[in-house]
């Protein structure tokens, strides 16, 4: 195994806790769970816009790490209001990937997320 590379970007998505934006090992990228925080520090209203914002942040981390065209192998989705948001999140999520290459996924309801957000998603990515 090569030495892990810890990616952190001062101008990347707002870091709300002590972590690297992503850690790279042997062509794999483990992306820290992203929140729906916009560049101006606010959170858009509604789970649809929040889901899109989370993916914008994830994609920006992937790009900065040189993984923009890499394959998203797995996604983990965390929701604070599972009953209310599960279907609505799925409707947006489904449009983010070609239907034939959806990542493996785990989605769980949780009691709370940082910054009072309603959604967080992390990724495991592999360079082809």
């Amino acid at each position, binding site marked *: 195994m090569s030495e892990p590379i810890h990616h952190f970007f001062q101008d990347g998505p707002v870091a709300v806790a002590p972590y690297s934006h992503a850690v790279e090992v042997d062509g794999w990228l483990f992306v820290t769970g992203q929140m729906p925080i916009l560049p101006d520090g*606010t*959170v858009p*209203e509604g789970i649809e816009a929040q889901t899109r914002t989370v993916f914008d942040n994830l994609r920006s981390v992937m790009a900065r790490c040189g993984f923009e065209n890499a394959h998203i192998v797995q996604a983990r989705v965390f929701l604070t209001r599972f009953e209310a948001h599960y279907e*609505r999140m799925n409707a947006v999520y489904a449009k983010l990937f070609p239907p034939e290459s959806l990542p493996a996924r785990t989605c769980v309801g949780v009691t709370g997320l940082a*910054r009072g957000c309603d959604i967080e998603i992390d990724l495991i990515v592999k360079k082809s």
Partner: protein
Amino acid sequence: MATKKRPPFGGFYNPLSREDDTELTRVGPGTPCGDYLRRYWQPIALVSEVKEMPIPIRVLGEDLVLFRDKSGDLGLVHRHCSHRGTSLEYGIIAEHGIRCAYHGWLYNVDGTVEETPSEPPGSRLKESICHGAYRTHEFAGLVFAYMGPPEETPDFPVYDTLVWPDGNHLVPYKLDMPCNWLQVHENAADPIHTAYLHSIVTGVQFTPAFAELPVIEFFETPLGLLSVATRRCADNLWIRASDVILPNVAQFGTGFVDGSKEKFALCAAFTRWIVPVDDTNCWVIGVRHFNDVIDPRREGREEDIGLGKIDLMGQTDERPYIDRQKSPGDWDAMVAQGPIAIHRNEHLCSTDKGIAQLRRQLRNGIGAVRSGAVPAQPRLYGTGIVPTYNNETILNVPRTTADDTTVLRDFGRKVCAEAIRSEPLPVGERQEQVEKAVRALQAEGAFYPQAAAPAQNFAEGAVNV
């Protein structure tokens, strides 16, 4: 309202009332306001919510079950079975109606008891009972119910904005509000808040144009009120005239006006009802309109409209609490008035004329029902279409040396007077005629007070001051 000013640091002397205005706020069966609201068709669900299973639903304090039977008919019935009271949310959908899971009684959508299977052959028990049920109607992706006396069922009112302009596309939505219905509905008769809540105090939530303080006026219309806010946007004047339709309907223009381009839209971007779930919960339920007249630049976002969502900031609690504290929206302002806003603790001021007028109109309607009369229903014309007056008007009326407040007031009055006066005209043609009349006034400089003959002013009697 408090009558005596208390000393500074005198919270001790300011006990707050806990008595709400029950005549207007309580909506359960047999309450004055509940009886009044039951005289009108009310939207109670999105059509898309009604799937293969019965839905337990509470409306106007009544526990009900909404379902679609196998023949495609909608049913809205009292939740608890007339036999032994279990919930029909566990009922089995039948070809016609719903069958209670407990002992198999079968109810049709009108409440008729079709079968009582455990009774001996020849039993006439079912003929002696009719389960509570209500009429329903599907329109524009919404399920409406009429919960008043069946013999008084009014025609379903189709507001002109719901069928015009040609090609108008309606997208239904429904939002939960954990508070009394009235404080949410009153927001429509409180146009000054659009400057403060949506801009001046909290930062720009819609567009910077909302930060300009409007001149506000309220005109009585055959439907209720027209709540008018007129603002200056450089050389243009912008009217945001919102229908407040009795008892609990309102229409609005868009949230994305920048005021830079002339616009004449005698139609709406939102038509919404505030339907009480019970005394301390309600829905904002209605439709967003998509068409080239109200939204020529296609700024609406259809994908953000539906169950629990709308393409306008601040209408839900779906932002973190800290963000909502920094820039609270309508949801926060209205819900934070409390489960039921206490009118005795308010101090209404000069910008609250619309609130006072709306409460008066509601009391009149409630009084009419209480005295045994049928309250006024939206009037129907030949085509069955109800004319409304909502308009979003932006015209070039540059600032002059004249008092600009007077210019704004005069402009708002004249344009809205044309909108109200034109109501007998057919839908569509009406917009053309009103625009023509307003353009003629614009061309002759009639929007400046010195040019206007007082006799041509909108009838003063209709202006509530």
